[in-house]
Every structure is written in structure tokens, then in C-alpha cells.
């Protein structure tokens, strides 16, 4: 489904991604771990289409389509979803209105008519339950005044509403209390199907107890330096990043 080949990206002339290779198949969950500043958020922003980055080399395809050619909104319409590490506030725009706009834009792209109001409301209800999002939050302005954890949960709510093919969760677990973590993980698991895939970026192996990855990758200085089964996360937790540094001889 997702195929990243030798991806190099830089910002202000500084190279941050230095040759990423990653293959994600439908039905899979991949975890990406790595020290602060290693380029995890950069990778997700580049995949979502943030224009600040310059792609100097490499390719990214989603189901055979050249993702790098597409505008950020078209990537979303093709099924890419990024749960932001730092979700953005949009004052005065209700969550509901925001999502309705998004859903109908995506539908229009696929040549479908706007969703009926009552179907939309039913969908909101259903997904709200799935991620146990307080009904009041759905009606409030997008992320405005939300607590850190509420913002994260709202990202998962949006993901549930938009039903993406490829979801990238950038540290969605950080800032969540243990109950919220379980709820969010349960949400992600329920949304998992054989037709979609998820990339989970995290610092903590704890999340991976709930969202069990097929593969764990370690990103270090803009490169994936090691990939392995979920036990790799445990090893990492135990030993810290030093053993990676030794292995790559940095």
C-alpha cells in the first residue's frame, strides 16, 4: 500500500530525512520509534504534504499513486490521515462543522454527493461512542481550549470519522492518561481492517501492549536503522537508544 524509497527531505537547507525506506502493506500496523529530533514528525509531515519541506530525493507511492505529486488535501482525499503530535486550534469553527466540511470534500473528490445531515449525525454518534468522546467536545470549536489529552482523543475521533486508508499517529499516546490510552488504542484496533494500515509513532512500548504492531522500526538521524518484530520495542525500552548508536557506529 505505502512504499517509501530512499526518501530525502530537508528544511532550510538542512537535511532531516536521509534516505528512508519503508514498505507498509494493507492490514498492517507499523510502529516507528526513535530519539527526539530523529525525524519522526518530519516524516509524517512529509507524508501528509506539508509544503515547508523540500524533497531532494526518493519516492513515495500509495497504492501505486505518486503521493509526492499530490497536494495535501488530495492526499487526505486519497486516504492519508495524520493525527498531529500538536493538534491545531481553530477558534469559532465547531468540530462538527469542520468534519462535515472534510467529509463532503472527500466525497466530492470521489464524485459522491454530500452526506445527508441525518446520516452525518448518526455517524458522529457512532464514532463518538467508539472513542468515548464527550458529546460536548464534538460541538466545541476545533481543539480550542481542549486539554492535551482531549486534543489527542479528538484526533482519533476525526480519524474514525474520516476512515482513512493510511493513518499516521504521531505520538498520539503522549499526554493521555492510562484510561484514555486504552480507549484510544481500542479505537484504533476497532478501526483496523484488512484494507487499511496504520503507522504509530511513539516513545513508549506501553502503547504497543495495546496496539500490537506487525513491525517496529527505529528511526535514527533521519534513517531507519533497524526494523524487527514487536519485541524490538521491549529491547529498546530495556536498553535505551545507546545500543542502536553502537550498532550503527555513530
Amino acid at each position, binding site marked *: 500500500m505505502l512504499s517509501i524509497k530512499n526518501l530525502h527531505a530537508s528544511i532550510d537547507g538542512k537535511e532531516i530525512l536521509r534516505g528512508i525506506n519503508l514498505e507498509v502493506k494493507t492490514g498492517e500496523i507499523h510502529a516507528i520509534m526513535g530519539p527526539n529530533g530523529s525525524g519522526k514528525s518530519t516524516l509524517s509531515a512529509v507524508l501528509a504534504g506539508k509544503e515547508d519541506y523540500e524533497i531532494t530525493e526518493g519516492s513515495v507511492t500509495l497504492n501505486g499513486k505518486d503521493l509526492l505529486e499530490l497536494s495535501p488535501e488530495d492526499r487526505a482525499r486519497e486516504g492519508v490521515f495524520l493525527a498531529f503530535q500538536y493538534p491545531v486550534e*481553530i*477558534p469559532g*469553527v465547531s468540530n462538527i462543522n469542520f468534519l462535515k466540511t472534510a467529509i463532503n*470534500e472527500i466525497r466530492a473528490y470521489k464524485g459522491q454527493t454530500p452526506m445527508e445531515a441525518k446520516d452525518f449525525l448518526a455517524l458522529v454518534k457512532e464514532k463518538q461512542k467508539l472513542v468515548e468522546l464527550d458529546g460536548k467536545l464534538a460541538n466545541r470549536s476545533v481543539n480550542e481550549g481542549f486539554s492535551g489529552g482531549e486534543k489527542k482523543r479528538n484526533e482519533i475521533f476525526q480519524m474514525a470519522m*474520516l476512515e482513512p486508508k493510511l493513518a499516521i499517529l504521531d505520538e498520539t499516546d503522549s499526554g493521555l492518561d492510562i484510561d484514555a490510552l486504552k480507549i484510544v488504542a481500542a479505537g484504533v484496533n476497532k478501526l483496523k481492517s484488512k484494507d487499511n494500515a496504520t503507522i504509530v509513532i511513539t516513545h513508549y512500548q506501553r502503547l504497543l501492549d495495546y496496539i500490537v504492531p506487525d513491525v517496529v522500526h527505529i528511526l535514527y538521524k533521519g534513517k531507519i536503522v533497524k526494523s524487527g518484530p514487536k519485541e524490538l520495542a521491549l529491547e529498546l525500552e530495556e536498553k535505551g537508544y545507546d545500543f542502536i548508536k553502537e550498532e550503527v557506529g555513530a
Partner: protein
Amino acid sequence: MANEILEEQISGEYKYGFVTDIEADNAPKGLNEDIIRFISKKKNEPEWMLEYRLKAFRYWQTLEEPHWAHVSYPKPNFQDIIYYSAPKPKVQLNSLDEVDPELLKTFEKLGISIEEQKRLSGVESRIAVDIVMDSVSVKTTFKETLSEKGIIFCSFGEAVQEHPELVKKYMGSVVPYTDNFYAALNSAVFTDGSFCYIPQGVRCPMELSTYFRINASGTGQFERTLIIADEDAYVSYLEGCTAPMRDENQLHAAVVEIVTHKNAEVKYSTVQNWYPGDKDGKGGIFNFVTKRGICLEDNSKISWTQVETGSAVTWKYPSVILKGDNSVGEFYSVAVTNNYQQADTGTKMMHLGKNTRSTIISKGISAGFSNNSYRGLVRISKGATNARNFSQCDSLLMGDKCGAHTFPYIEIKDKSGIVEHEATTSKIGEDQLFYCKSRGIDNEKAIGLIVNGYCKEVLNKLPMEFAVEAQKLLAVSLEGSVG
């Protein structure tokens, strides 16, 4: 809601820019006493009205055009304007069948229904409309229904004929012709506008609305609106404006006066969408307007809500004189400027009575090469004990070639007065735009969403039908401004 509306919008072009090809009855160009006599005669006015006009004209001749606003534009040539233009056939039609079909088409294109639709099982919200095309009022709907309650809603010209005592009593009582240059000019040459009187104890059962349209070229529009709410009366009044796209600058200089008696309330909402000129700043309306209300007696309330997206140059300060004790004045404004538009707008709240309160919420949005200024005065006079004002002026910048300015003036002559002023300036966030895009929403729609969100407090004050229109307008007028 907003997104449904935004979806409908097809292009960012000024969509009201068409010209209707109807024969017009014009005065010759230029301004002198003969022209004023011509206008007065055309309107079959009584002698006192003509006298008033002439006094105003003579006074106007002694004045210099004002230049204190933060705008710059070529000085209008007052001798190069047609001061009277009436679509033929003439005014006062008895039924819709008599209206020129071209005119009907015009209003269809503008999306205004002048059919008096029947009340549908009592739920349909209805609006009575007065339509002013160039210099005359073309049609006022629902007049009979309203008159059953004693409400007078008619063209200004008709009021002069039918209700001279009311016009004499109130006209110029809030904005005297000596008020300023453009008020004097308007008092001399005003042609038509709306008149509205709500009698004691009556809550007007529907929105009253006037739709102003400049059509003929080379003309100016000088309308006059007078709204009076007698004791315990209430009315919500809406005003909309559009004009064709022309290379020339056309002058619009209106006067609006509102008077509220004891316990009365008037809500005045405007969606101003005069042609703003093209991308390079060519053409567009000069909009120099004096709007003022007076809370004449105790416990009365006047609120102005405006959404300003049009005009090349705007110069407008809807104000409230809070004379009655416990009276309330409100000003909610969204002013958008794009390309080379210039707006200098704000309000004056003059606290004279005790326990008077005023609220000012101003949202300025500038894009392109435009300049957007808020200018506001809050004055608490001696004896206005316990007066309170709260002002909030926010500016949103899109791009780095536009300007936003805030000129708050505060004069407190009574120690018990409390004035709070808050101001913010922000840039439309790249982060916000990217967030929207990452959810499948494109740039234009994202801007529409963000801007509508930013203006929500003001848009919420508009009657439903107008809010919809206003949201569309905001999105359209900012198209192509970022990214």
C-alpha cells in the same frame, strides 16, 4: 452550516457585477440649486422639504471635503455626478405585474424574492423588502400586512408625502445636515431610501429589509433611512447593497437615523457588498456613510451589526447616542478588505444617560494590498454615572502587504465610568491551513472556515437569512488571498 454555503460558491468573481438594461430617467450631470429643485420636483415634494434641501446645500458649499480618515483616493468631482436616476416606468407600482420584467430578472439574479410568498403553516420566516434602485424605491412588499399593526414601512419619498409630520419631527434630529460634509451633501440631494415607524407596544412580526442597488453609470446614490421605534416597540432591520462592476468610481453617501423611545429596541444589520473595484484597484464604490442612532429615552437599545466586504473606499461609523438612562448601544462589525480596498470604520458610543452600557466587537480582516482601520470613540459624559463600555478590536492579516490599524479614542468625564478595551492582531496561521488541508479541505474552503470562525461572534448577531449570505460573502471576497 458554513460548509454547505461555501460549497455553493462557484467563483471568486464579484457576482453582482451585471448591469440591467432598463431605461432610466436621469437628471443632467452636476450639482447646483436647479438640480436640487429638479429632484424635489420629480419627487413632488412639499415646500418645507425643498427648503431643507437648499439649506443643506448652501451649508455644504461652505465645507471642505474631510481628509482625516486613514484612506486615500482621488477627490470626487461633485460636478461630474448624476444626482438623480430613476428606472422607467416610474415609481409606486400597485402590483408585481406592473414591474418591468427586466427589473424582476435583476432581483432574481440578486437572489431576492419580491414575491410576497404566502405564509406556510406559520413557520416560514418572512422578510418585508423595500428595493431602492439608483435613486428611487421600486417596490415595498408586505405593506398591507404591516399596516394592520400600525407599522409604517415605505420608501422615504412616500413618507414625505404620507407622513410629513413624522418626517419633519425626526429627520435630521440624529444626524443634522451640519454634521459633516457628506451628511450635508446627502441632505441636499438624497433621493430615496426607507422609512420605518413602529408604533407603541408593537413588536414587528417580520424582518424589515431594504435592498440598495446602484445600476446606472455616472450616478451617485444618496439614500436616506429613518427608523423610529416608539415606546416598547421592537424591530429588526436589514440592509443589503450591490452595484455593477464599472471602471469608474461611484459615490455612495447615505444617512441613516434611528430613534428609540422608552423601552424600545432596534436591531440594524447591514451586509455591505458594493462593488470593491478590480484586482488592480480600478473602479469600485466610494462609500461615505453617516449612520447614527439615539436611545432617546430610558431602557432603550440600539444595535448595529455590519458585515462590510465591498466598496473601494469605506468611511463609516455607525454610532449610538445613549441619552436615556439604562440604555444600551451595541456595535458588531466584520470588515474585510482585499486587493486595494481601503476601509476606515468603527463606531462612536456617546454615554449621556445613567447606567448606560455599550459593547463594541470589531473584527477586521485584511488581505492583498488593502488597508483596514478601526476607529472608535467611547465618550462618557459628565453625569453619565455608572456607564460601562467593553470594546474588543481584533485584526486578522492575510499576507504581508496589507495593513491593519486601530485608533481607539476614549474620553471619560465621569469618574464612575468603566471602559475596557482589548485589541489583538493575528496572522492567519499556516498551521491552521495545513491542518484543514490534511483533512481534505482545500485552501479556499479552509480560509472560508477559519475566517468565518474568527467572525463568529459577529455573524451570530445577524438574522439567519443574512448570516448565510454573509458567510458566503466572506469566503468569496477573500478568495485567492493566501497561498
